[in-house]
């Protein structure tokens, strides 16, 4: 579900977009699958972490993608350290 919270991209490259918890869950799910987590576990971890992050996001007028990434990695670390590492570092590979 899309909350009325603006997500600010780094360096003002793109216009702010509305926070979308489903999109976030999809990206967490994808990170879990990338480190070979079984599909069911990946889906439940993704929805759980996305829900926690959404609660935090809901209390803010605007957030940056960096904030989201850091927060997701922080919560994902408890459930799946490998996925947390990959989620945080996948844009720092190249």
């Amino acid at each position, binding site marked *: 579900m899309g909350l009325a919270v603006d997500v600010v991209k780094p360096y003002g490259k793109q216009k702010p977009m509305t926070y979308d918890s489903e999109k976030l869950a999809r990206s967490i799910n994808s990170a879990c*699958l*990338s*480190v070979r987590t079984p599909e069911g576990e990946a889906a439940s971890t993704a929805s759980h972490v996305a829900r926690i992050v959404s609660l935090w996001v809901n209390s803010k007028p605007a957030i940056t993608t960096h904030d989201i990434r850091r927060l997701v990695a922080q919560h994902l670390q408890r459930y799946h350290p490998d996925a947390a*590492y*990959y989620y945080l*570092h996948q844009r*720092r*590979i190249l």
Partner: protein
Amino acid sequence: MIPDNTTIALSIVFLAALVHASFQLSISVLTLMSGHALGRKTAHRRLVHLIGGFVSGAIVMTVFLLTFIAYLAGVIMPFGTPAILWAISSGLAIGVGIAVWLFYYRRQLGTILWIPRSFARYLDNRAKTTKSAAESFSLGLSSVLSELLFIFAPLIIAALVLIRLTPDMQALGILLYASVSLLPLLVISLLISNGRKISRIQQWRETNKRFLQFAAGSGLLILGVYIYSEQIVIVNALGGL
């Protein structure tokens, strides 16, 4: 029995290939492509095809670049390589070696390289959208081309050394260069194909990135200094006798 000068020539080709092997751009692109493929639930067999396509592309482009430079050098300079070209090649190796020591990885977390960001974004997008073996083959070709700035010095030195050999030894030299320079890529592709986690591979790469940077820079410096000593200093000294 292989003559001594052929052994020395093949040793230089081996060292140049080792230097080439320590550059990481192709491995980064392979890691990204595999991560994206796994993230969209690609079947294991399909993933292996993608990896196979990528590695084949990298092999073809490496062999093509080496043979093309060697052919060009043979056509332009049929009576031997002039000293100025050896001096330029060794200068290039020393210069790039120092640059690699200083700049190869950006000073931040991860394994981000000093390549133009637009280029890195292009490779990232291509890695994300690669779904067939043909696309991964072309990604393998382009990733070797993207590394050209770093691998040009070892390639040109290996090519100049190879053109002095007999045709059978040239073929052996090309095989040696391709297999040694692509060994890390083959190892990573085998690890991913055998189910090793991308995160573990990336963690290892990140932990050892400074060592790899130091090894690549040092290898280029050693290669440059050796070529300069062998082809300029010693040849001039013997010529003066």
